[in-house]
């Protein structure tokens, strides 16, 4: 009886795994097909699509452009997100809940609405659409994710360490720099990887705040609107492998540091 349930449940799990993976595997496979036409059957294989995207200036450029945007926006959101986390995880103050609510707001606003709000606000601030506007929008959008991760880590910091530092004569600022900050490093690193990927993968905000220079997702979107081609498979495969590899590495890294700290 119990075992029958178990078998059904495990089948559901593996069916779900298939549902998650088959489309991606299919996409990777189609990138090696020696024909302009996407779909089965596959008669012969080729690397031509990869060679052709590496010689395409526009694609290489948008790749670098996306990475640059991701790095700058991550730097901003990590600094601000950590600062907000330190404020919120300190003593409770009057108006704590509204501050927390405001902090989480950008993560809860549906994509299109947040993109439009940023577009309107950027115009009001006088930020021209383009790289600066995208960096700013990504930075604001990613702050809540940093804050949540850092707050979780900060709540596990033993108070005794701070007290010990203060007893030994360190001032509050030094205590923060030498005790709190090193303790937060794994969380900050994890959060920055997450932000890098969020920013690199983001479409809506880049689409509405960008100028004629396209980030990688915007470029893929534009190519898709004019029809499918194996070139898109090749680009998407490279983006997939890159993001998945970074994601897995970060996941393992945070898991490892969490384990190290428990001992």
């Amino acid at each position, binding site marked *: 009886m119990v075992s029958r349930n178990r078998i059904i449940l495990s089948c559901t*799990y593996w069916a779900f795994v298939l549902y998650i993976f088959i489309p991606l595997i299919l996409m990777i496979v189609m990138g090696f097909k020696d024909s302009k036409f996407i779909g089965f059957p596959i008669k012969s294989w080729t690397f031509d699509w990869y060679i052709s995207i590496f010689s395409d200036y526009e694609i290489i450029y948008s790749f670098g452009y996306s990475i640059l945007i991701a790095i700058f926006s991550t730097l901003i959101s990590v600094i601000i997100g950590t600062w907000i986390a330190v404020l919120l995880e300190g003593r409770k103050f009057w108006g704590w809940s509204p501050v927390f609510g405001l902090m989480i707001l950008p993560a809860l606003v549906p994509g299109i609405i947040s993109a439009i709000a940023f577009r309107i606000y950027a115009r009001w601030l006088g930020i021209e659409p383009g790289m600066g506007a995208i960096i700013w929008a990504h930075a604001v959008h990613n702050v809540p994710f940093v804050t949540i991760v850092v707050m979780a880590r900060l709540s596990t910091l033993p108070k005794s360490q701070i007290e010990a530092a203060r007893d030994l*004569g360190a001032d509050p600022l030094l205590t923060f720099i030498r005790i709190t900050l090193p303790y937060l490093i794994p969380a900050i690193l994890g959060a920055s990887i997450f932000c890098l990927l969020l920013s690199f993968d983001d479409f809506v905000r880049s689409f509405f705040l960008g100028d004629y220079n396209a980030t990688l997702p915007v470029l893929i979107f534009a190519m898709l609107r004019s029809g499918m081609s194996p070139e898109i498979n090749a680009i998407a495969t490279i983006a997939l492998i890159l993001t998945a590899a970074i994601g897995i590495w970060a996941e393992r890294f945070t898991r490892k540091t969490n384990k190290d700290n428990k001992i």
Partner: protein
Amino acid sequence: MPEYKVGLENITTKDAYLNSRPIWGRIINFYFYKIFLNFITFSPRRQFLILAAFPIVWLLTQHLGPMLQMLRVSLLEAYPVAEGTPHSFTIDNYIRFFGDYIFWMPFFRTLIFATIFTVCTLVLTYPVAYYLARHVSRKNQMLMLLILLIPFWVGEIVRTYAIMIFLGNTGAVNLVLKWFGLIERPIPFMYTGFSMGVGIVYLTALYMLLPLYSALEKLPKSYTEVAADLGAGAWVRFRKITLPLTLEGISSGCILVFLISTGFYATPVLLGGPSTTVFAETIAGFFHYAGDEWPTGAAFAVIMFLTALIITFLFYRLMKVLRKGDT
């Protein structure tokens, strides 16, 4: 040497600390550092204000600002406001929505689709989360969860494209169906509500899976074991114990997925067809051209956001009542 020893006895803890770490010692003895430190730690009150000032300013101007500005623009008669003319406020932009039923279809379609997709995601991921949390050993749990996390690192557009290939006329689903002899001609899955649903469930499954998993993981196994000892069948155990105690995970997962799926733009454009235009596309339409349509677009975005918020709030209250009623 003897003098040195005498000196060592008089060294305070702080000095010893400074000597052992010359860089930090030099920094904290630096004149400007001291001035800065005295300035920020003059009193606990000032210390707190300095800590809080920047985040509060940031939150108000960057998190709340765009929302308020969107609200303001939605009430303007024309945007950008021509120089020299006063700002004239109007609610015409909102009336335009209620006055023209052309806009109602995409609006209600978005809400209905988002609800259906949320329910589908819940039904699809609940058994998976249940299996992971209850039937898998601790060591394998992390690995099996990680397998599911990998594709979620990949971006929205790439995964939408993968679904396009998956469901296409010559895609995997049609191939398999043909192979089994179930169909002769490929089923046109693409550019329908179905393909959009598959795509959106594919994109949002993780946001449902993780809250469900953490809720189920917290639930002690002994609860259901006790119920089984007392003679409750599998269905009763699920209905009376597991489901009520994971309502919190269900409600947060549903809220996340609902809010996210109302905001998709690229996925409906790529996977949907002319008969499945969602409100996001309507809103975006007002922003593709120069400024004078912006107030209408902003008003529509405000309507969409408020409706989504009200629905999630009502849902949250309902879940709270259910939780209280059952426990």
